[in-house]
Each structure stands twice: as structure tokens, then as C-alpha cells.
């Protein structure tokens, strides 16, 4: 017993050892930072990889401040490997765990830049990468490619939308293009959003990487400095929140341009499908030669003017542009305190997305007559309109209209403040009655004389007062099954059916083989008749009754008619059943004596008793073999 327990404990220890081995002998954590290039242009993205060795699940490193770079996390992936070596029949296994974090870095200024040391934490240990110096060169413009940025206006008011257009002029095919426009990412006090692109089936559009995201550019063709270029153009809408002179730093675009073709050296060493899409179909026997370029755009500036203080309304909303405001309400026939949905539609400016409606609770005419919730939902831009909804509740029954809602704005075209105003909306406000229980049931509602009689859904119906209310009702199926009635309903019918089935089966068995049934009960009947014979009037009668009883017994057992049965009739069947000679002799004597008594007169009483006992012994012997 102790030996078995020792073996068991040993096995458990070994299993635990196997589980713990990887941690106990885990390799120390180390980290290494690598870049795909160290000499780059300003605006040219490159990849920084932090390779962690010794762990498959390190924490994502918190990067230190990297001035001069725009950093975007690309993702992480496991970098584990297992190698098995078999030397002279001995197998050795080498497991290497690792993880790689990838970042996309874009230099923002020229000069010597440095990727500092980065600390990585894994399994409670830390590892530090080595710093990497990066040289960032000023990009230079080339003849075949130009990048231009421009503004729709160079003098605007605070809050006035201005469109920033970016056009990339292309002289040949390019691939792997990315535009870097750091100014758009800086917090310049500017609200920036994409200009809506009206997609046309006749034009072509491309997704262009821009900073950390992308933008949809429209393909076109333009002439610049007397040269015709293919163009890719997109626009941003800028709304400045502060006045002043603003300088917009240049953007850059990095790309690989097709600069020529060369003959394919080995047509079999070729990834057909990748080059099919990168090169022209006709150039199956040659391949394009691409060169990396980074080109800068021009720099632009604009002046943002403050709004004039003269004539500025007290309720000025801050909106700049040209606006129209309309209103509708539903329902317009209400009781005091009932909600009315006021819908305001603002239109006019093509850039309604950032526009917010001034607080209605600040409008004295509305506050006087209505209860207005403090919270106000943002509107929704639909089909050139921004739609705002607000719930109002009339405070009194004498309120006759929703007064005009006003919106003051600065019109840049005329250079003056203006006010958009809705039309007043007539209302019918009825006083609210004190609600009682009868009101709640609808009893006191007036019925219009002569109106169509309709079913009124309000109010509650009458009580039940019949005696059936005091009867118990069942609603729980489990309780019903557990009750006597449920159990009886579920159990009794199948049991009765099975009983009936059993009875039917036995009855059919009986009716199908009546001789068999008689044979089964032959011995019982014999015993009964022998007892009756013993109580007979005289010895002759008793002998005859005994003979009849034995004949019937043998007839039933051997399935032959018992009426005129003789010993010779039963001898062969009994031999067939295995009766011995002594029994057959005894039976023969019994038949002979009984026949003799029938024709020769009554035997002595003592002989009859002896005959009875011999018959008893004889039939017991026969019963064993029949």
C-alpha cells in the first residue's frame, strides 16, 4: 500500500516538474529595436520593430517622448520557434519565444533625430533597447511630381468655413504612396472635417493614406507650369476658432515612382500574380523599376479676423455664414403640461455638421410660456438641413402660440450680424382637470352626442363576484404531476392498458392451444377425481372411477381421445416419452385389473385400497415424464 502511494506521489512530482520546467528554465528577457531605414526624408514613413526575446506575451511598451516623429502603432505578433535536432539518435529540442511590436514612424523635421531607448516589461522582467539615430533629410521637389496645398480664402472670419485643397500632380505610375500632413494633427484651434465627396460614376476615386488614417482622393488631369499631369485631389474643411495669422506647414508625400523597365532575368523565378497588378500586362517580359521619392508641398498662410464687436446681438450664437431657420410642432392641440415636439430645421450653410443650436431655455419668449428641458439633443444632418427636436410643455391654458425662435449669426458676405427667425406656431391649450380614480377609469369623459359609438379602451372592467372565485385553480404543471390526481392520471391508464394487454395475451394463448391447457391441468383433475372415486359407493364403482380418471389423465397428457383408451393405445406414446418397463407393467396390470373388475364383479375392499395406492404411485411416476 505504502509502495503504491510512493509511486503515485513520484508520478505527480514528475508531472509537476514537467509543467514547471518551462518557467524555471525560461530564457531571460531581452529586447532589440530595429528600423528598416535610418536615412529618410521628412514625411517619409518607416517601420520600427521592437523584438522581445524570451516571452510570448510581453506588455506593450510605453514609448518615451519622441520629438520629431509622428508615431503610430501598427500591431504586434508572436515570434516563437521550435527546432528539433537528432544527432546520433539523441534528440534535442530548442524552443525560442519571442514577440514583435511594430510602429510606423514619420519624421516631422530634418536633421539628426534619435529613437530613444525603449523599456519592455515581460514576465516581471524588464529589457531595454538601444537608441537608434535617424537622419532626416529635407525632401526636394522633382519635375515629374508636385504636391500643392491651397485655401479657398486667405482672409476669413473666426467661425467661417474655409476649404483646404491638397492636389498631388503625378507624371508617371506610383505605388506605396502615403501623405504626411503634420499640421492637420496639431492642436491649432481649428475644427477640421472632410469635405463631403459627391461620388460620380464618370470619375475615379482612390483611398490615399493620410497621417494615421486615409482620405478619398478624386482622380483628374490638370496643367501646371505648362505640363500636363494626372492629379489626385482631396479637400478638408477648416473652421478657425481664434483670430490671428496662421501659417500652414508643408505636407509631404512619399511614394515609389516608376522610373523605367528592365528585362526579366529569370522568367521562372517570378511571382506572376503580384507583378501582374504592379506592372502592365504587355510588359510580361520586362518589369518596372521603381524608385523611392519624398516631395514636399508649398507652404501657405491665411489671416483669421475676429468678428466685429459693433452691432453684435446679445444672443449671438457664434454662427458665421448665412442661415435659415424654420419650425414645426406636433401636436398643436394639447392640455396644460402635455408634451409638444418642436422641430427646428436649420439650413443655408453647406457645413452644418459642427453647428449647434443655441439653448432654447435662453429664449425669454419660450421660457415664459413653456417648460423646456435643460438637456438639448444634438441635431441630425439630412439633405442639406440640420434638424433639431425639442420637447416643450405649455405652462398655462392661455398660451396661444409657440413664439418665433431666433438665431443670430454673422453674415460674412454683408459683414453684418443678422437674425434668422421662425414663424409663430398657433396652439390650442386646454386646462388640465384634477384626475380622480373615476377619471382614470374614463367615467367622466364627455360623450359626443350623435357621434359613432366606439369601444373605449380606457378604464378597468368590473370585479368578479360569482362563487367560482373561491375555487382553487391549478396553474403549476409540476404540482399537478406531484398530486394524487396528476399521478393517477398519468399512471393508471398505462397500467390498465398493460393489464388488459397481459390478459388479452393469456387469453389468446389459451384459445390458441386448448389441448395444451388441458394437459397442464390434467394432474390436478386426476387428483380431484381420485378423491371422489375413493368416496364411491362400492369397490366396483371406485375401480371404474379410478380407471376413467386415469384414462382422462393419459388422454389429456398424450392429447388423444380418452373415451375408449386402452393400454395398447398409450404404451407406444409412453415409451416415446421415456416411461420405464416397471411403470408400463404396473399400468398394464392396472388396466387389466380394472377391466376384470368391470366384467368379473367387485374386488375385495382391501384390494381396492391397494389398487388406489398403486395408482397414486403410478401417476406420480408418469407425471414426472409427461
Amino acid at each position, binding site marked *: 500500500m505504502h509502495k503504491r502511494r510512493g509511486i503515485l506521489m513520484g508520478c505527480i512530482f514528475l508531472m509537476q516538474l514537467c509543467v514547471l520546467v518551462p518557467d524555471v528554465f525560461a530564457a531571460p528577457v531581452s529586447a532589440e529595436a530595429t528600423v528598416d531605414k535610418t536615412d529618410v526624408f521628412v514625411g517619409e514613413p518607416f517601420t520600427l520593430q521592437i523584438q522581445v526575446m524570451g516571452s510570448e506575451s510581453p506588455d506593450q511598451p510605453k514609448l518615451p517622448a519622441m520629438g520629431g516623429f509622428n508615431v503610430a502603432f501598427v500591431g504586434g505578433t508572436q515570434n516563437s520557434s521550435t527546432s528539433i535536432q537528432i544527432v546520433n539518435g539523441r534528440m534535442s529540442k530548442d524552443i525560442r519565444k519571442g514577440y514583435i511590436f511594430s510602429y510606423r514612424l514619420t519624421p516631422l523635421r530634418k536633421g539628426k533625430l534619435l529613437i530613444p531607448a525603449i523599456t519592455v516589461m515581460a514576465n516581471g522582467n524588464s529589457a531595454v533597447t538601444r537608441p537608434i539615430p535617424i537622419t532626416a533629410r529635407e525632401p526636394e521637389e522633382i519635375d515629374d511630381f508636385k504636391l500643392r496645398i491651397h485655401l479657398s480664402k486667405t482672409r476669413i472670419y473666426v467661425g467661417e468655413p474655409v476649404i483646404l485643397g491638397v492636389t498631388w500632380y503625378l507624371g508617371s505610375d506610383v505605388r506605396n504612396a502615403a501623405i504626411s500632413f503634420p499640421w492637420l494633427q496639431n492642436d491649432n484651434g481649428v475644427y477640421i472635417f472632410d469635405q463631403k465627396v459627391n461620388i460620380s460614376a464618370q470619375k475615379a476615386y482612390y483611398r490615399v493614406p493620410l497621417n494615421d488614417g486615409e482620405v478619398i482622393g478624386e482622380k483628374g488631369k490638370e496643367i501646371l507650369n505648362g505640363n500636363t499631369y494626372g492629379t489626385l485631389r482631396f479637400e478638408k474643411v477648416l473652421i478657425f476658432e481664434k483670430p490671428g495669422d496662421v501659417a500652414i506647414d508643408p505636407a509631404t508625400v512619399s511614394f515609389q515612382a516608376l522610373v523605367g523597365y528592365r528585362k526579366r532575368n529569370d522568367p521562372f523565378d517570378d511571382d506572376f500574380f503580384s507583378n501582374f497588378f504592379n506592372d502592365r500586362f504587355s510588359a510580361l517580359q520586362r518589369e518596372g523599376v521603381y524608385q523611392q521619392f519624398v516631395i514636399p508641398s508649398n507652404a501657405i498662410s491665411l489671416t483669421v479676423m475676429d468678428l466685429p464687436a459693433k452691432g453684435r446681438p446679445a444672443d449671438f450664437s457664434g454662427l458665421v455664414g448665412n442661415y435659415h431657420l424654420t419650425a414645426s410642432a406636433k401636436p398643436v392641440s394639447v392640455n396644460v403640461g402635455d408634451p409638444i415636439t418642436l422641430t427646428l430645421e436649420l439650413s443655408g450653410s453647406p457645413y452644418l455638421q459642427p453647428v449647434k443650436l443655441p439653448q432654447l431655455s435662453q429664449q425669454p419668449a419660450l421660457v415664459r410660456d413653456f417648460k423646456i428641458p435643460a438637456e438639448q439633443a444634438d441635431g441630425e444632418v439630412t439633405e442639406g438641413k440640420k434638424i433639431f427636436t425639442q420637447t416643450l410643455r405649455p405652462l398655462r391654458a392661455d398660451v396661444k402660440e409657440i413664439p418665433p425662435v431666433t438665431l443670430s449669426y454673422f453674415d460674412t458676405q454683408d459683414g453684418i450680424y443678422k437674425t434668422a427667425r421662425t414663424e409663430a406656431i398657433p396652439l390650442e391649450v386646454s386646462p388640465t382637470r384634477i384626475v*380622480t*380614480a*373615476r377619471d*382614470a377609469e374614463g367615467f367622466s369623459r364627455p360623450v359626443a352626442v350623435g357621434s359613432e359609438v366606439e369601444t373605449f*379602451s*380606457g*378604464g*378597468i*372592467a*368590473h*370585479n*368578479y*363576484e*360569482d*362563487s*367560482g*372565485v*373561491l*375555487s*382553487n*385553480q*391549478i*396553474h*403549476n*404543471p*409540476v404540482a*399537478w404531476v406531484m*398530486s*394524487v*390526481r*396528476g399521478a*393517477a*392520471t*398519468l399512471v*393508471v*391508464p*398505462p397500467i*390498465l*392498458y398493460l393489464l*388488459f*394487454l397481459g*390478459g*388479452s395475451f393469456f*387469453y389468446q394463448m389459451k*384459445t390458441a392451444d*386448448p389441448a395444451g391447457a388441458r394437459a397442464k391441468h390434467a394432474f390436478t383433475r386426476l387428483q380431484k377425481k381420485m378423491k371422489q372415486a375413493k368416496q364411491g359407493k362400492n369397490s366396483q364403482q371406485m375401480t371404474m372411477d379410478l380407471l376413467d380418471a386415469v384414462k382422462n389423465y393419459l388422454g389429456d397428457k398424450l392429447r388423444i381421445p380418452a373415451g375408449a383408451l386402452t393400454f395398447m393405445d398409450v404404451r407406444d406414446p409412453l415409451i416415446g416419452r421415456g416411461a420405464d418397463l416397471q411403470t408400463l407393467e404396473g399400468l398394464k396390470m392396472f388396466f387389466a385389473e380394472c377391466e376384470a373388475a368391470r366384467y368379473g364383479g367387485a374386488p375385495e375392499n382391501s384390494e381396492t385400497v391397494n389398487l388406489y395406492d398403486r395408482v397414486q404411485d403410478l401417476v406420480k411416476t408418469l407425471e414426472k415424464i409427461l
Partner: protein
Amino acid sequence: MQNHRQTRLCFKTIRIHRQCYLLPALIFALLVVGLSVPGMTATLSREQCAQFFEEANNLYHRADQITAQHPEEAESLYRQAAMRYESIVAKGDIHNGKLYYNIGNAYFRLKDIGRAILNYRRAIQYIPNDANLRQNLAYARKQRKDNIDEPQDTRVFKTLFFWHYDLSSQTRIFLFSVFFVAVWLIAILRRFFRQSMLRWGLVFAVGLAVLLGGSLIAEAVTRVRITPGVIIDTVVTARKGNSEAYAQSFTEPLHAGTEFELIEKRDAWYYVRLADGRTCWIPAKSAELVR
């Protein structure tokens, strides 16, 4: 001899046929006796229950008559009527859909929408197809402040499996018993009469017994898995955890009459799921369970 045997066989067959006609009568007798077994835990006698019931009805009538002129006195009478109805349930151990309906009406008149809906929900377990009950429950639900939509798929299920939702449990149990017994009865009869009518009758009875039995099993499972309840306090702040320390789950509090399904009970708090699927914790004292 042979003729004599045939005569005896026919005679026995006829006797068995007579016995099989007696079987359904015996089974139905068992069923009827079983369905009339009274409650076992009552502390009020039947006569006392009847007396309470009459008193409650009278109080309710008097309240109806004076509610317009003397609303406060009527409120007191409605409250007394509700207490008597509730005593019949609690002490008389009588559970009847119409009784719960009357309790719901009394609470509705008391403007206690939470308890009104609670008792209507209890009543609908017994009499789901009662038109008055459905109307009153729908109207009471309109009176509550929280408007939480029921999911659409539940309505679809209620249409597809109408017998499960529209028939009371008692009706389904009775119908199941009838068809269950009919299955065995027809099975016995088919031992003697091989008629197609009996065969189709057996198929029909088996089909309905399975449908109704399945419905009862589904209800039993539902009763184990789902415990409905109703908020009875006027205003309840639903929270994200089972104490006042947790932040509120919704910007607005819940109000009396809001229905829910109990997910978990922890200390004196219920973790509940509202009709639209959102979950929250509420104090247990602010709500009552339907069963």
C-alpha cells in the same frame, strides 16, 4: 364439440368487450375525483372565506358609490376590500385568477399601479384568455411611467404557439388529461376493432397530447428558470450593483408597475432583467415577485 367450443369463445370475447367499455368510465372517474382535491394548508374555513369574499365585495361597492363625493373615504374602503381579498389568498389558501383580478382592481382604484399590475400578472397565470383581465392589465400598463418595449420576438412566439400562451394551465392540464386517457382508451379499443377511424383517432389524440404535454413541460421549465416580478415602490433607483454605493444604471429612476425577470437574489437586492433586455439591481423591498 367444435361448435360448442366456438360458442364459448364468442361468449368470452363479448364479455371482454363489455369490460373494455367500462375502462374509460373508470379512468374518467379517477380523473374527476382527482381534480376536486381541495387545498391542504388553509387556516380559514370555506365558510369564512365566503364571508370575507362577501364583505370585500360590499366594501368595494360602497367605495364605488362614494368615490366621486368622498374620495378619501372611498380609498379607505378600497383598501379594506383589498385586504379581505388578500386574506382569502393567504389564509384561505385559495388561488384563483378572478380573485387575483379583484385584488388588482382594488389596488388600481387605490392608484397603486405596481400592486395592480402585480396581481393582474398573478391572475393571468390562471385565466390568461380572460378579456376583462387583458383589458385591465393593458390599461394599467399604460398608466405606469416607465415605457419599456417588449421584444418583438416574444410576440411572434405568442402568435405561433397560441395554445401555450392563450390557454390557462388548468385548461391545458385538463385537455392533456383527456387526450392522454383517450390515447390509452383508443389503444385498448384497437385491440378489438381495427377500424381506420380509430387509427386516425389515435394519431389525433397522440398529437394533441404531445402538444399539450410539451406545453406543460415548457411551462414547468419556464417556472423554474424565470421568476417574473413587478416594482411596487413609486420610485426606485436602479443600480449597477447590489448596494447603494454603485452608480445608477439609468439616467431616470424606475417607477411602480415596471415588470422584470429575476436573474439573481443577493442579500436584500434583486438582479433583474427588464422587458427590453437591460439589466440592473433594485432593492428587494421595492418589488414583489409574481410567484
